[in-house]
């Protein structure tokens, strides 16, 4: 089992949540408005959308294998990520297999918010590019 390089996002940007709310057509105010998140008793800051947190896991896997194509991402969302949080990630390569002539790497991933604990666990499968001469 090989550890993936440590991954970190310094600050979750509430402005990106607003863009994503439009792209997702997601009207939930907890992603837009700190006052709404407070009023609903969810958090004191805007709450990052689940797919954005999933994207961080995908980014971590693709940072470890920059030329690869991600073909599967299975995630469990375990806690909230809030505006202004930093997020730290890690994981391991679980196995590597040749399927239909392509090398597939299966990784287990996790993301943590320092001080609040684990927010996501995931499994990703990436297809590595064919080595020169095998194309």
């Amino acid at each position: 089992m090989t550890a993936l390089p440590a991954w970190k996002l310094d600050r979750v940007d509430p402005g990106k949540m607003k863009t994503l709310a439009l792209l997702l057509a997601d009207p939930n105010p907890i992603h837009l408005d700190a006052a709404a998140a407070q009023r609903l008793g969810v958090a004191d800051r805007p709450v990052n959308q689940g797919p954005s947190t999933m994207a961080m896991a995908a980014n971590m896997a693709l940072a470890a294998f920059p030329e690869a194509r991600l073909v599967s991402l299975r995630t469990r969302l375990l806690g909230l990520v809030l505006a202004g949080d930093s997020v730290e990630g890690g994981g391991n390569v679980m196995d590597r297999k040749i399927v239909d002539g392509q090398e597939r790497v299966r990784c287990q991933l996790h993301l943590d918010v320092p001080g609040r604990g684990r927010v996501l666990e995931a499994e990703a499968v990436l297809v590595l590019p064919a080595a020169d001469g095998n194309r």
Partner: protein
Amino acid sequence: MDLASHALPSGSARLEPYQNWLLHDAFYSQPRPEPHPVAAFVLANRGIGISLADLFALFGSDINDGPLLAESSIELHRPLAEDADYEVRGEIESVERRRSRRIGPFDRITCRFDLFQAGDLAATVTNVFAVPRPESAS
């Protein structure tokens, strides 16, 4: 109403190049012509023929009442493309009553969305929502 196996209205979605750029940026990813893998989630969400608010209403919930995305699975059968039309078909696969210490009784509702491009299956997105069911409503 029994929600399990309930087909959702189909629809379509397209990721325009500027939306692809914005989505990469919103996902903390360097913008590039190939969509981010989690763009499949966005296309499913936007392309299914029912709004998120109406989907939660179908669940007997309200988008403002705290339904949670608990799990999500994305399978990319082929690379996604910007500027391409995706037909989105979906169904509610299962509904299971559960209980958690944090939110009490809740329904674990699994929805599957298939994305087709030019008639071929391009991606499958399976989302599991945790919908709180207060004791008085169960």
